[in-house]
């Protein structure tokens, strides 16, 4: 009787994991959500400036006009749009829409196909 020696991974090498498209969209959901969490104080501060007074509204405009702020906001815009679209996908799967493998992978593609161009369009407007 020959022994079957299976090579089992002792640890997960993140660079060797090939995620299917749904898994890829899913980890981006997590990353985008975490990024939004980290930037939450910044976003609340912008809300405060926008509603404080005429002067603070103008200072908000000046801040948003800075290229670095624009890049950051476009990054956050992508994070929000991806998280938003993925959230709707998850809600649909919860009500048993698009549960099987092919559909789930198609809907993951759709999330990317909606969130990325929308980021470009709205980002271009912001710029």
């Amino acid at each position: 009787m020959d022994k079957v020696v299976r090579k089992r991974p002792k640890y997960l090498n993140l660079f060797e994991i090939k995620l299917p498209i749904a898994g890829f969209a899913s980890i981006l959901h997590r990353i985008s959500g975490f990024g939004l969490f980290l930037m939450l104080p910044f976003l609340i501060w912008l809300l405060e400036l926008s509603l404080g007074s005429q002067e603070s509204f103008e200072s908000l405009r000046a801040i948003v006009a800075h290229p670095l702020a624009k890049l950051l906001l476009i990054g956050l815009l992508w994070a929000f749009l991806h998280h938003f679209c993925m959230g709707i996908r998850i809600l649909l799967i919860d009500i048993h829409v698009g549960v099987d493998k092919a559909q789930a992978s198609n809907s993951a593609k759709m999330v990317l196909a909606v969130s990325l161009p929308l980021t470009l369009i709205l980002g271009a407007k912001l710029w």
Partner: protein
Amino acid sequence: MVNRKIVGAHYGLIDWLAQRVTGVVMVIFTLVVAIGLRQGAGASYASWHEFMSGGLMRFVTFLFIVSLCWHVWVGVRDIWMDYIQPAGIKLALHVLTLLALIGCAGWAVQIIWRL
């Protein structure tokens, strides 16, 4: 010696449900604001202030703030649970996240309250 792992399985369903309900509230708020902006609410300070200070809008914004912080709590706590192993660091991160979110919620609510 009994070597038992203590896990809190009781909060899973309520968190799952909370994540969905708060998500739906935020989708509705997003659509309301997007429609408002599309109709030019962000054009000037006066129009933006008027848009946000309506009674219904303040009600919805308050729900949004509470939903957001609750949603972030469930999501970020899951991230700490998945990736941070030492119990002490994990506990500290949970507490810091919770305190930060409560503070942020208070701050954001005050912005709406002042309108």
